[in-house]
């Protein structure tokens, strides 16, 4: 069995907007003598759009219709109709995610881009997506090492630490190539981001909007940005400036990763070797400080003292990550008694281990109690219940789980909301069947496994694939400031 999923990735970043189409190849990896094990075995990018500047209405607002127009054009030139799209992600990244109409734009776009394309954003997820798109997690796995990838875009630097293929930590700093913009020909400054402005004032660097500047004049502020990046990976001691530069959180500094890689637009100039490729013609050709920042990083201990890994993608890392690394496949023995997919934007209620281990009554009460958290104006909303499950449960234990869950979910049943269970361990088929039995076959059940979730996550579940055996799932965290 071999099946292809067509996936779209759209990245609307601080400065650029891009799109890719890719094929996710899924296969049954199990022999015909065992239960199936369907997984994504390969990913292939089949179309890359040009890199566009993100259309903005103002500094605070994305030009939604323009973005849509742009995407439409790309679908057309790729010769792909949205009905062909199986999965994917639209991601609004960096500063753009903080624009006033970000959520609205996302929702419109995800509906437009395909039936099962999710809207997603948030700095942590963005770090992971760009790091995976840059190939850092693959490198860490194949070389048995740890890698920090820094995706340096226009407005933010997203950090993700991977150790032997696992995500270890994420962070985000307000450091980017377009935090100061200037006119490429006159070199007159047209924009300085507020946090950078504060730093300039603190250190009396004498840089103002409207000034005509030189490289030398800008170097001190660029060095402060480089210092921030060094601090984040533990190459320089922390100070007050660092705290200021943190977007939401930075990575733990205790265990310094063995390798470093760079992605994002600025990365092209981190990897740019003047000795090999000749001098850079004009450091201000993009009307920003990206080139200067990239070269400053190259000359800093970030590049000279750490083991540098060449990323597989630079400016496209995020869009490649969004298109190829956001979709997971559920376990291959699952239960759904009715095909009601796709289901989008399902919030997760994650039960604690104590809730699970205490037996039927405790489970029931925990579900009842925690469901109350999901009430909006006293009305219960749809929600998926996530639990860890047991490694090798007995049938009696499965029955206890099923009874506790069904009784605890009575309110969902009364409100005619779907019953959706997501288990980490491989037990979804028997648990789903047992719940269905407990419900007297009168209420439909969706129970899938092999997906790890936490409170605060949202998921989308797509149309069944592989002859209905598995469900594609996208785990996301929607955070809008």
């Amino acid at each position: 069995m071999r099946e292809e999923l067509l996936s779209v990735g759209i990245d609307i970043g601080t400065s650029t907007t891009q799109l890719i189409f890719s094929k996710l190849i899924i296969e049954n990896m199990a022999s015909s003598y065992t239960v199936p094990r369907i997984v994504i075995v390969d990913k292939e990018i089949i179309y890359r759009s040009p890199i566009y500047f993100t259309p903005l209405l103002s500094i605070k607002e994305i030009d939604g219709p323009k973005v849509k127009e742009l995407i439409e054009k790309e679908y057309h030139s790729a010769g792909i109709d949205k009905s062909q799209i199986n999965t994917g992600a639209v991601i609004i990244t960096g500063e753009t995610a903080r624009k006033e109409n970000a959520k609205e734009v996302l929702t419109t776009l995800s509906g437009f881009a395909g039936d099962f394309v999710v809207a997603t954003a948030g700095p942590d997820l963005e770090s992971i997506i760009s790091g995976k798109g840059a190939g850092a997690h693959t490198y860490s796995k194949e070389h048995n090492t740890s890698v920090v990838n820094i995706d340096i875009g226009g407005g933010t630097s997203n950090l993700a630490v991977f150790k032997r293929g696992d995500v270890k930590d994420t962070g985000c700093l307000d450091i980017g190539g377009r935090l100061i913009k200037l006119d490429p020909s006159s070199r007159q400054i047209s924009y300085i981001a507020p946090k950078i402005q504060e730093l300039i004032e603190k250190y009396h660097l004498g840089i103002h909007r409207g000034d005509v500047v030189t490289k030398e004049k800008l170097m001190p502020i660029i060095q402060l940005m480089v210092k921030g990046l060094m601090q984040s990976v533990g190459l320089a001691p922390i100070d007050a400036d660092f705290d200021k530069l943190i977007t939401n959180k930075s990575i733990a500094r205790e265990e310094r990763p063995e390798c470093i890689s760079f992605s994002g637009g600025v990365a092209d100039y981190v990897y740019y070797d003047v000795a090999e490729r000749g001098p850079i013609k004009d450091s201000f050709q993009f009307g920003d400080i990206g080139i200067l920042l990239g070269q400053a990083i190259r000359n800093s201990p970030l590049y000279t003292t750490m083991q540098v890994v060449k990323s597989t993608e630079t400016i496209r890392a995020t869009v490649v990550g969004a298109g190829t690394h956001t979709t997971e496949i559920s376990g291959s023995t699952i239960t759904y008694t009715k095909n009601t997919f796709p289901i989008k934007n399902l919030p997760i209620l994650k039960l604690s281990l104590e809730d699970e281990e205490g037996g039927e009554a405790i489970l029931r009460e925990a579900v009842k109690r925690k469901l109350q958290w999901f009430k909006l104006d006293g009305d219960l909303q749809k929600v998926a219940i996530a639990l860890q499950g047991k490694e090798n449960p007995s049938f009696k234990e499965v029955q206890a789980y099923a009874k506790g869950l069904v009784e605890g979910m009575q309110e969902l049943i009364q409100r005619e909301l779907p019953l959706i269970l997501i288990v980490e361990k491989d037990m979804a088929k028997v648990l789903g069947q047992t719940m269905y039995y407990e419900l007297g076959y009168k209420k439909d059940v969706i129970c899938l496994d092999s997906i790890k979730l936490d409170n605060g996550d949202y998921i989308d579940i797509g149309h069944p694939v592989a002859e209905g055996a598995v469900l594609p799932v996208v785990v996301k965290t929607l955070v809008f400031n």
Partner: protein
Amino acid sequence: MILKTQLFGHTYEFKSLKEVMAKANEEKSGDKLAGLAAESAEERVAAKVVLANVTLEDLRNNPAVPYEMDEVTRIIQDDVNEKIYNEFKHMTVAEFREWILDEKTTGADIRRASRGITSEIVAAVAKLMSNMDLIYGASKIRITAHCNTTIGEPGTLSSRLQPNHPTDDPDGIMASLLEGLTYGAGDALLGLNPVDDSTESVVRVLKRFEEIKQKFKIPTQTCVLAHVTTQMDAIRKGAPTDLIFQSIAGSEKGNEAFGFNAATIEEARQLVLSEGTAEGPNVMYFETGQGSELSSEAHHDTDQVTMEARCYGFAKRFQPFIVNTVVGFIGPEYLYDGRQVSRAGLEDHFMGKLTGISMGCDACYTNHMKADQNSIEDLSVLLTTAGCNYFMGIPHGDDVMLNYQTTGYHETAALREMFGLTAIKPFHEWLVKMGFVDERGRLTEKAGDASILF
């Protein structure tokens, strides 16, 4: 031809040469299951006496399966060099046995004789040999073959690294592979038995093997032991493979049960010669094992030693790089216990060499057989004495996919040290360069630490 003799005054008369051949076998549960075994210990010896007096010509003229109905027979018979055959055909089996054992007969003499005899002759002489005869005879015969490196040279003992994994997890496979290399395993082959016989899976594993081979510049061969047609598919899809593998049987019907015939094998060989990654000329890998014909009811009322010899006759046509008997895998209904496995291992190795092929042995046992690790350690020592080309190498001898036990990485290392042998020269030099063995091929302190290769 006389089919009658007396033993202790009692007359034993056999109906056919086929019956003599079967009853002359050492005791095997598979021959009993087939209803072919001698009914008493004396009858067994009587059959040996009769067989000793049969000429090689009689054996050639009475193939186990008629020429007209079986392509394996045709291949064996057609490949006989008539001139050499004529020199030997009047010998009795007893005389041929003594000729092989004679101090004046060299390995080269025997290799020449190989071209003039059939598999039934090979089987017959093995039936008249004691265990030490089998070792003594085989130890004279060195058969080398060349794929990327040359296996079978004097002073070497090789190992097929078998990094099997219950779900073909590529990382799990790599884990066993890397560690095996540090123990000096893998000079014969890096060869995986896949769980998933799909082309995609075979391509995936072969690519990983090739990556490792290139990354560390390892002078060896690679192969994934899927069905021959799957491997051909994989090659056509661009998978890098050095060798093509197939399990074979001693009759056309048996091969059909495995899903191929001689034409398939020749097509595969031509394909791997033209599109494979190896230097060659020897690019085939076969596995056999006593009893497999009976299990697919393709034995034509022939005993399992004779059918096994016919596998080697068939294999020889395709100039294999390596052939091994998976001697204890099939189960107690064919080889009852450690003793029968040992005997079969020695017979198969001798017969393979007398046929003229590069012979190794998967000295192994399953858990429903009355055998244990000691049984196969014994066998591996005996076969090393006999000059066996290679053994399997698996972590601690425990195959976590096929659920049987064979020789571990440590076994080949210990055998090499005890017998003063090394891996194949370029591979040995690679091991020395990496620091896993010393000049003499003994393991160093670094051996067994796969993290050196991370």
